[in-house]
């Protein structure tokens, strides 16, 4: 079995990179990519901790449901981005400052 700490360090790095991308990028699609990265960082931790008790598959089930939620989030998020681009002609989240047109 590979050392558990390395999985956890990788998960921490991926989560921090996702956080930086979500805060700094001025594009809605790039923000969605950052959120995907953060969800996968949590998956790394779940799969890594599942190694401690391999007869029970709880961590892997949790990772599976996280993947399902990530898919739903990506689909609805990209539909929202397309809709906003169609209505406001921009994909920069900072420029969306009114509720109705």
């Amino acid at each position, binding site marked *: 079995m590979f050392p558990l700490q390395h999985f956890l360090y990788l998960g921490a790095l991926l989560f921090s990179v996702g956080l930086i991308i979500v805060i700094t990028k001025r594009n809605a699609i790039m923000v969605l990519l950052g959120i995907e990265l953060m969800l996968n960082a949590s998956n790394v931790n779940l*799969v890594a901790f*599942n190694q401690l008790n391999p007869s029970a598959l709880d961590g892997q*089930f949790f990772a599976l449901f996280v993947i399902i939620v990530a898919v739903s989030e990506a689909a609805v998020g990209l539909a929202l981005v397309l809709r906003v681009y169609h209505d406001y002609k921009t994909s920069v989240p900072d420029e969306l400052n009114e509720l109705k047109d």
Partner: protein
Amino acid sequence: MNLLNFIFYFLESVAALSAVSMIFIRNVFYGALLLITCLIALAGLYVLAFAEFIAVTQILIYAGGILVVIIFGIMLTSKISGKPLVVEHANLFSGTLAGLSFLGLLIYFLSAQKFNVFSTAKPLPEASLHTFGIELMSDFILPFEIAGILLLIALIGAAVISSSIKSKKV
């Protein structure tokens, strides 16, 4: 075991490098490709962590589904002017400060922890996938059904949100 160690550290460094270079990239298309590189390297790591089903699901869903959807989104929201979509940065100082301090905090607490690893406990390789299916249909049947309903709701919601205005006015 030496080869396995090499593959483990290679996949880990590929995932980390592609994720970090996503910060510095300015083209959204390259960002999507780097994300897929990172996720496929993570799928390899899941195989090494005895989670074969999660690895296959990761490749199927991300490389087959989310990559196509994201590239469609990039191409539909880029200007027609022909030049590539360039992303500008905002809040650089605060974002980097938040991310790096969070990373430092996590590494500080993780390096202080000692997780006791039962090195003798090996998973049953021939029964892993079998057990996965049995568990999914017995103990985890309620989350499984709720996940199905969630996917249906997300599908309908995405279709409703992205339908155009003109068809609504007719």
